[in-house]
């Protein structure tokens, strides 16, 4: 009888170059997707920018007043305010000679002395730029630097809050959908409690307990936002739990954990990824609202959110460039990120080629 043991003797040298993992194949597929590559490049560029600003190589001195207040972008030329707005210009005649008061001025003898003393004091009056490529805010800070520094905070908050919400939502959803029964009922109850409270109230509650800071914003958004992911993942797990391939995995003796996270999770990963990209987008926007309400990032830091809320007051005066800078940065990143997760989802799906 030619048993399997004799089959063992047919040694086939494994070819490590050919056994490509999921990620290698995914990368290969991603490379052929033009939209995916472009969006990946943009996301990577943003990541680099965030990294550089984090170590202080870029936008490190964003708080310096490098330009005149509300300096417009370069292409608009210097502010028109500089000329012809002196309120006394028409009152004082330019031809009139200054009246000599030396005789009756008791301080007259001191003038020379003061002049000499004043000459000794060095005033380093840094030249303020009239214009900047992206303009300046009302304190004369470079809007471009602010946007870059703001990207650091906003992307950090968006990504980590999304990650937190995804992890909580996926694990609870998987448990609830896979195990079901009493555990499922309990998690459904938790879910219902969380969703029955208005989000903003929940955010206030967490903010009151946790105090202010970037970590708090991440925690708040993550703890409030996981419910949507939970719902989706739970539904997917209920669907996949009885699929034949999971049955087949049970038949060969895999553990529950392996079935939940090795077998089913990759098959529902597209749902998780798409939802997560929506989270990133949503949380970046939520951070804006939180900052606006005074619950977001501290005042000594800047995010796209704080920039947008500052822009509100400036817009009335016609200073639109801070709003534009924050919007362009945010829109570019958010769009690129969504397109990238979309491409990633396609690349990870072996059925789509």
């Amino acid at each position, binding site marked *: 009888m030619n048993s399997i043991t004799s089959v*063992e003797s047919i040694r*086939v040298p*494994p070819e490590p170059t050919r056994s490509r993992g999921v990620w290698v194949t995914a990368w290969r597929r991603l490379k052929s997707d033009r939209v995916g590559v472009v969006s990946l490049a943009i996301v990577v560029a943003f990541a680099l920018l965030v990294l550089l600003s984090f170590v202080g190589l870029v936008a490190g001195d964003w708080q310096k007043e490098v330009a005149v207040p509300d300096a417009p972008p370069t292409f608009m030329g210097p502010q028109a305010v500089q000329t012809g707005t002196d309120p006394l210009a028409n009152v004082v005649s330019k031809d009139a000679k200054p009246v000599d008061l030396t005789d009756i001025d008791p301080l007259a003898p001191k003038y020379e002395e003061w002049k000499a003393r004043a000459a000794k004091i060095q005033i380093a009056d840094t030249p303020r730029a009239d214009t900047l490529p992206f303009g300046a805010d009302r304190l004369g800070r470079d809007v471009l630097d602010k946007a870059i520094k703001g990207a650091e905070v906003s992307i950090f908050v968006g990504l980590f809050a999304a990650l937190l919400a995804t992890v909580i939502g996926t694990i609870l959803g998987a448990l609830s959908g896979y195990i079901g029964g009493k555990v499922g009922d309990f998690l459904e109850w938790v879910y219902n409690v969380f969703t029955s409270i208005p989000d903003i109230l929940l955010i206030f509650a967490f903010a009151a307990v946790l105090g202010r800071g970037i970590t708090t914003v991440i925690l708040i958004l993550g703890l409030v936002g996981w419910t949507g992911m939970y719902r989706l993942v739970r539904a997917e797990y209920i669907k996949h739990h009885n699929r*034949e391939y999971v049955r087949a995995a049970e*038949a060969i*003796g*895999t553990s529950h954990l392996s079935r939940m996270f090795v077998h089913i999770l990759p098959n529902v990963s597209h749902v998780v990824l798409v939802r997560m990209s929506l989270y990133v987008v949503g949380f970046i926007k939520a951070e804006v609202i939180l900052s606006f309400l005074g619950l977001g990032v501290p005042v000594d830091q800047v995010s796209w959110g704080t920039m947008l809320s500052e822009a509100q007051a400036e817009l009335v005066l016609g200073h639109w460039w801070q709003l534009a800078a924050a919007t362009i940065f945010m829109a570019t990143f958010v769009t690129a990120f969504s397109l990238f997760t979309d491409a990633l989802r396609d690349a990870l799906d072996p*059925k789509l080629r």
Partner: protein
Amino acid sequence: MSDSIRNLVSVRDLHVSFRLGKHKIAEAVRGISFDVPENSTVALVGESGSGKSVSAMAIVQLLPENAIVGPTSRIEFDGRNVLTASDSELRAIRGNDISVVFQEPMTSLNPVFTVGWQIAEVLKLHTDLTGRALNDRIIQLLNEVGIPEPKARVDAYPHELSGGQQQRVMIAMAIACEPKLLIADEPTTALDVTVQRQILELIAGLQTKHRMSVLFISHDLGLVGEIADHVVVMREGTVRESGPVDQIFGAPQDAYTKALLLCRPRLDVKPRRLPVIDDFMRNQGVAQIVLQSRQSRPQEGTPLVEAKGLRKEYRLKTGLFEHKTIEAVKEASFNLYPGRTLGVVGESGSGKTTVGMMLMRLTPATKGQVFYNGVDLLTLSDRQMMEYRRKIQIIFQNPYASLNPRFTVGQILTEPMKIHSIGASDQERFSLAVALARRVGLDDDSVHKYPHEFSGGQRQRIAIARCLSMKPDVLICDESVSALDVSVQATVLNLLLDLQDEFGMTYIFISHDLAVVKYMADDMLVMNQGAIVERGNADAIYAAPQNEYTQKLMNAIPRGYAGPSASLQALAASET
């Protein structure tokens, strides 16, 4: 059939391709021609992917959006060219002159409307009937397709009807406007044997009564023989052979037709190996293989597996404190002897799958014992069970669903080895996986591919290889070949038999297809509504079924072409 009879449909040089992606085009139908004469039944027969459904759907122009019909193609229906017809003309033809019955009645009917409403919709679109007349017509139609108590059933929702009744409703909708042509696309494939027979008889009856033409699409040549006047055999988008049914069954000219006729397991002979398409295409000596009879291992020693009083109940809540008990399996006791095959037959809902699942503890049994070499598996803890888990393995019905789409074949094959610590290192396991893939007839390359890159038959081979990786003693084949084409079925059955000889495995072969069970099984159980109604030696049961239900099942087996059926053997003999 004389030539003077007018052709209702004539298809000439039909080319259909599908656009896949930007630059890829797949040719599905490559220049086929056939006619459907008035008042007759034409069968399109072929394996999946042969283009038979695409050809039929081209007649009603119900092709997917990415389909391209070749410029030289011509389809004439009743003298009109369908391909150049406008949308409104087509709508008038569809439903009125040509109607279609699909394979899956469960998905073809809209679950949120009553059957009466759905039939009424067709009638309203194509006739002027209203009010009472409309209602009467609906009841008349339901009556005609043999639905009991049609007056009460008008207001029933699709889920309240059985699969067979749903298909009857579909047929009622199809014949509502008395079409000239009825296209039936595998109308009985999703149904049980006994229901399949009834539906076939219904279609045949309606055809003669309304003097309409039927285009019957099927992968099963045997089935077609009972109903068709003309047969068109298709393969890979071309017509291999076409002609009157006597000629196709009596004196097939094409090697492929011969192969299709012979590769299906038959009730009268039990060859060691089923002939497969390749044998014929390569023109090997078929008859020799066919007539060599198979010897099964005698029943000896103690049974390997002993099931005693297995019972499965499901409790359905019907109220706050009330519940209803549904008995999926009432009482199942049987013995499995090493190296033999136990066939389990029954219609859907008979509990045959549940029995297999309970043996493996994939479904917890309500009551009963399963002794494996004297150990009661059902009382073991999960940890103790691990040791036995690999001894009993299962191959599921649907090879498309039973493999994890995110795993490569290599991962699928090495995972069970990892779990059961077979093989010392990952590398050793990998080479074992390659050897297994080779053993079940796959390329060495296949271990790097994903399941979706394989055809149904190949996937079933992967599933078989996964089971083999654990060197099981018992293999449960749960409808394992039911989803496969007849010709692919033969190759998988041959593989299973080879493996049984090679490794001395014991099989439980669960199927609704009696011919397949007859071919594979040594012993047999017949199940009906959760109970085993007949048991014993398979050959004996087939020769003389004792139970009434078994007799009913046996009568429902498609007998194939009713004419010179004996000539099949003559055909095999003439090959030498």
